[in-house]
């Protein structure tokens, strides 16, 4: 009976809060009238007020208007503000939800069922809006004051909450380097010597330098994704190439045969790997069977007569082909379209010698081969902690990382506005992040709070951005970290087996 009463009250509450209040409706009407009279400054003030009340339509309309008039900066500022408030509201909601169960139990013990039922009703309510948050926060304050007058006790309940210790990596502060760079580099060389002596390096150093890296670019890897939608794979390969382990990974996993074909162990460096043979014809452009037909993931007609491999040195093309053969049993440049870097890193690195981790705020639609989501800025809890830890502690000696940019849904008004702003950035040569695209991470500077990312379209042109912009533009992060303990043990086993 009690539960039925609560459900009924919840439904009534939802209905009453779904429509904006009278004040918001009047304000929105006034803003609209001001826009019609070209008083955009005043309209902007009202839009700002409405944003804070959780009403976003007016702001979107005004942003549209700014774009029409060429005031892109104002449009962008408005959208940023909108996103900021929305993010904050989501975070507040998550914070309240996080402590739900514990609060209910504790409050029930202290004050009986009345207060707990009220909290349940609020937190079960799916309606967005500051009013709900305001009510929830007032009630929680009331409970804190009256039921837990000792605020230190209530802070334990309502503060940052119980941060679980199971992922210690995310809770550690960045450790200052105690040992100077020359000693660290020397140790890295010693480590490679150990691995060389333990493992079987099937590819000579000369072949590695000839087929994988470019001396003219200071031994960096030069890759350019062409007309196949496998940015996630190219980004993963490039991210691996930024690691100091790249040479060791490649030389211990790939063999160049006398007939010029290649043998690749997938996952790389793994004992339980599958040997993939890649021949020269696997590296050639492919005739597109879908030419002239609608694309599977959009309504556009596929105008690509030929599907091209990545533009890169032969060894990197071999890696691309080996991945496709591993996944699809054949080099299928149509099937490889669309994916996420964590899958590519997982296939390339495997879990035998690497820790794999992903943080994401998006949902991947397998059917449409696209992601839908917001941005890393809305993360909370352990994911947020890990993201912050990663940004403070990224080390190319340790981490191999790639990120996926947020998808823009052009079927919504917000999406159309964001796309127009994005297109404008591209035209003006500003930092432009392609939506729904994968990038590798080559560097993080925690002091200046910048991230350097690399577009698979041209890996020799890195892009630097602030932490804030990175969290806004990206919705997914994939990280692989070498497990040195396992690697060294596995290398021992390989040597024993061979002997």
């Amino acid at each position, binding site marked *: 009976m009690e539960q039925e009463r609560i459900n009924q009250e919840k439904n009534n509450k939802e209905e009453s809060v779904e429509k904006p209040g009278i004040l918001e409706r009047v304000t929105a009407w006034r803003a609209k009238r001001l826009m019609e009279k070209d008083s955009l400054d005043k309209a902007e003030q009202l839009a700002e007020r409405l944003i804070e009340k959780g009403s976003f339509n007016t702001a979107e309309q005004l942003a549209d208007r700014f774009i029409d008039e060429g005031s892109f900066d104002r449009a962008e500022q408005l959208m940023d503000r909108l996103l900021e408030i929305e993010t904050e509201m989501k975070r507040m909601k998550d914070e309240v939800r996080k402590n739900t169960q514990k609060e209910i139990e504790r409050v029930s013990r202290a004050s009986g069922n009345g207060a707990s039922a009220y909290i349940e009703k609020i937190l079960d309510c799916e309606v967005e809006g500051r009013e709900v948050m305001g009510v929830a926060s007032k009630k929680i304050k009331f409970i804190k004051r009256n039921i837990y007058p000792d605020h230190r006790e209530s802070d334990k309940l309502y503060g940052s909450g119980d941060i679980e210790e199971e992922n210690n990596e995310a809770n550690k502060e960045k450790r200052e380097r105690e*040992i100077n760079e020359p000693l660290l580099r020397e140790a890295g060389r010693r480590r490679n010597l150990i691995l060389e*002596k333990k493992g079987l390096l099937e590819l000579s150093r000369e072949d590695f330098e000839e087929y994988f890296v470019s001396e003219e670019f200071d031994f960096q890897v030069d890759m350019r994704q062409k007309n196949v939608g496998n940015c996630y794979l190219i980004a993963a390969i490039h991210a691996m190439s930024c690691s100091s382990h790249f040479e060791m990974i490649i030389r211990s996993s790939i063999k160049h045969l006398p007939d010029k074909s290649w043998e690749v162990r997938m996952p790389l460096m793994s004992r339980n790997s599958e040997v993939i043979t890649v021949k020269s014809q696997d590296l050639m452009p492919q005739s597109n069977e879908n030419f002239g037909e609608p694309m599977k993931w959009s309504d556009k007609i596929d105008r690509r007569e030929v599907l091209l491999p990545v533009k890169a040195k032969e060894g990197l093309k071999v890696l691309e082909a080996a991945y496709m053969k591993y996944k699809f049993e054949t080099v299928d440049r149509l099937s490889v379209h669309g994916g996420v870097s964590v899958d590519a890193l997982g296939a390339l690195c495997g879990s035998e010698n690497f820790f794999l981790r992903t943080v994401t705020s998006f949902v991947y639609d397998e059917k449409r081969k696209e992601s839908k989501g917001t941005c890393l800025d809305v993360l909370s809890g352990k994911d947020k902690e890990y993201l912050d830890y990663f940004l403070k502690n990224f080390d190319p000696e*340790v981490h191999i990382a790639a990120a996926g940019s947020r998808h823009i849904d052009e079927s919504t008004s917000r999406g159309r506005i964001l796309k127009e702003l994005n297109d404008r950035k591209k035209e003006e040569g500003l930092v432009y992040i392609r939506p729904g695209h994968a990038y590798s991470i080559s560097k993080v500077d925690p002091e200046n709070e910048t991230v350097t990312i690399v577009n698979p379209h041209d890996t020799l042109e890195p892009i630097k951005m602030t932490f804030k912009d990175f969290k806004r533009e990206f919705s997914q992060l994939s990280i692989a970290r*070498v497990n*040195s*303990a396992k690697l060294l043990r596995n290398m021992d086993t390989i040597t024993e087996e061979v002997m």
Partner: protein
Amino acid sequence: MSQNDTEKKISAHDLAQKFEQEIKEAIAKKFSIDAMYLSLLLEDEDGAYWSQEEPGTLCCLVVGEKDGHLYLATAKMAKDKEGLDNFRCDVIS
């Protein structure tokens, strides 16, 4: 290899083994991990060595069995030439 190098080579491993506890404790303290899960790479020729970059510095590679990290621990030869002091450590990979 000269006799000096040979002696240095043996000494590096011997010294690292002798000060295994101090090395592990330095890493455990800095990185808040259990020393029980640290292993010095003394079975490998290159697991402990005298640095060529910084003379008089002993270097030892240590594996974290639980977290998978490879650490570098360094120490300076003490003034009495019999011990080590000034222990430092960092993550290599």
